[in-house]
């Protein structure tokens, strides 16, 4: 175990909002690892997959430098995600990361984390799901994450990747939450491109995980063990078992509701709204937000007013915020980097009965194709 570097513990609020920040021109992979450097992480477990690898390599270097206390390269994603679930059960702060096919390989484990009430941070660098083979950015895997029970944040850029990763630890370990937090960004566009990122000093770090203040007891033989691991009836086919499982699932759903205030506090609201008065609106998440910002600027040059709603948190989904922001909308488009259009589906379900707006079924690119602003503009003004 490496020696621990001396860093000063500060509150998440101080680290995220108050500490002076300096700018660095870095990649998303660097931004994520810089967040982990300041996150007081105990254990990080890595397994390579493009475009995630660079982040977890850098986090390995943090271990060698003494910023995290244990680290290893696992045998595969299932091994990494399983070991993380074991570590989280013992009360230490832990994290891992993956992309597209790797995430799909470990999906059984990922979907079990919330049921085991495991605080941890899972970074997702989105990538096409094979086949055919591709390593390109496409965020189809987030569709599978939506029903996994994990809290799911979707960052727009390198700055978000830094901030949301730090926020993820704070949200995950709140007593009312006690759930895994997944922080996603679009691969390559964010992970491998450079941008200015403002960061607080590396001499600061989050407080350690306070595992006895969470909703579920640790498996450490120092306090009574968690009931799901102990009670026989839940493993049987009988009425008590059905009841227990149903109640447990409801509780995960309730924890998501309770997480809203913490997600909102630590990432500054579940949405960001630009030009709220506009009747033509773009709803987007991830890299599609950046492209939409540029489309907005171009539309303004053409003398047209367009609004933008950036969805930062996919779970919990900003239901009330979206309904309020879309009250006056006449036309909504949802640019996405995936084929089925999972955000479009979410937006339609949320606004049904709450908005008169026409919601376009697109635009969407996938398989690694970029989203030209021309495409967004074309869809915005198609009906005119």
């Amino acid at each position, binding site marked *: 175990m490496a020696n621990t570097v001396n860093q000063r513990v500060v509150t998440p609020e101080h680290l995220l909002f108050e500490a002076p920040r300096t700018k660095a021109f870095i990649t998303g992979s660097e931004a994520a690892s810089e967040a982990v450097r300041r996150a007081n992480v105990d254990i990080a477990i890595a397994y390579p997959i493009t475009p995630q690898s660079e982040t977890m390599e850098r986090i390995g270097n943090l271990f060698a430098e003494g910023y995290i206390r244990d680290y290893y390269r696992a045998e595969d994603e299932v091994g990494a995600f399983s070991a993380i679930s074991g570590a989280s059960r013992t009360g230490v702060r832990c994290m891992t990361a993956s992309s597209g096919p790797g995430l799909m390989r470990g999906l059984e484990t990922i979907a079990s984390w919330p049921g085991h009430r495991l605080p941890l941070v899972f970074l997702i660098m989105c990538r096409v799901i094979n086949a055919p083979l591709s390593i390109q950015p496409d965020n189809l895997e987030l569709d599978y994450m939506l029903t996994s029970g994990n809290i799911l944040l979707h960052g727009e850029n390198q700055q978000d990747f830094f901030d949301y990763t730090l926020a993820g630890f704070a949200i995950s370990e709140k007593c009312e939450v006690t759930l895994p937090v997944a922080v996603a960004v679009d691969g390559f566009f964010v992970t491998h491109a450079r941008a200015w990122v403002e960061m607080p000093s590396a001499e600061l770090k989050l407080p350690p995980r306070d595992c006895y203040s969470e909703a579920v007891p640790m*498996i450490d*033989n120092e306090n009574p063990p968690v009931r799901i691991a102990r009670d026989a009836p839940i493993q049987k086919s009988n009425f008590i078992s059905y009841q227990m499982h149903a109640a447990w699932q409801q509780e995960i759903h309730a924890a998501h509701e309770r997480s809203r205030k913490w997600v909102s506090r630590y990432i500054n609201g579940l949405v960001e709204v630009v030009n709220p008065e506009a009747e033509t609106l773009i709803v987007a998440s991830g890299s599609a937000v950046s492209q939409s910002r540029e489309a907005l600027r171009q539309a303004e040059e053409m003398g047209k007013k367009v609004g933008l709603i950036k969805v930062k948190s996919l779970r919990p989904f900003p239901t009330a915020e979206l309904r309020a922001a879309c009250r006056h909308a006449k036309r909504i488009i949802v640019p996405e980097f995936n084929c089925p259009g999972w955000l479009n589906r979410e937006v339609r379900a949320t606004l049904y009965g709450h908005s008169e707006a026409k919601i376009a079924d697109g635009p969407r690119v996938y398989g690694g194709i970029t989203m030209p602003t021309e495409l967004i503009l074309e869809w915005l003004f198609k009906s005119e």
Partner: protein
Amino acid sequence: MALRTLQVSPGFMRFMPKEYQDLVEKGPFGRKLKLSDLGTYKELLEEHPMCEGCAMAFFIRLALTALPAPEHTVIVGTAGCGRLSLSQAAIPFVYGNYCDTNGVATGIKRGLALRFPDQPKDVVVIAGDGGLSDIGFSQVMHGWFRQEKFTTVMLDNEVYGNTGGQESGMTKRGEVVKMAPIGKQFEKIDMIGLAKTAGVAYIARLTPTNPSRIISTIRKAVLIAREVGPTYVQAYTSCNIEYSIPPEKVLEDARQVEKERYGFLEIISDEAKAFLAAQDAAHRE
């Protein structure tokens, strides 16, 4: 101190079930118990829903008796018959997903080592032949290659008992069971040989014919895992339902199998031997 977690607030003890009172007052925690003490204290596991005559239930009872520090032990299991009783023992039991026992055990061991550097915490995987030699194979092997310091105990009933009797990697060649309609087409997986190749510090193979041997084997395996490296115990625990062994003939079958193909075997690394010798010397003083 972990024993504290069992204690009941003063005044409330008389409202607790008798079972619980017995566990606090006459349990095995913090005591050094021998095989001959069985029957004189409250055991970790007394009631379970396993089948009449089940060799696995018998083996688990003795394996739990053998734990050197039950108050600081975590058991990790998975789907299969064994967890039906393990989950009812008075010891923390983690049931994760399919295939994940040895990955979960890795995380638990490392997490506890970080939080309690001065208090040894024993992690013991107890799972079936399917869980360890088939679906969990990769995690078992890689845990060994990484030299993770926990014990793996295989309850080898040579079949998927809990799902109704399907072929596993540990089923004998030629055996006709479910999903092997014309008999199993390949040999029983040589997990002992694989453990040796992977550098497991202590490897043992045994049947439930000799209770004191079970106890000494498990105890050695847990202590060596604590101090030296990974350990592996493979126990023949026949499925009397799927292999149609009358309950009263289960031990007879075990003796027969032991004689024919499952003889007691120990493979101990030099480092583990040195550790055991030092333990013996300390014990004699």
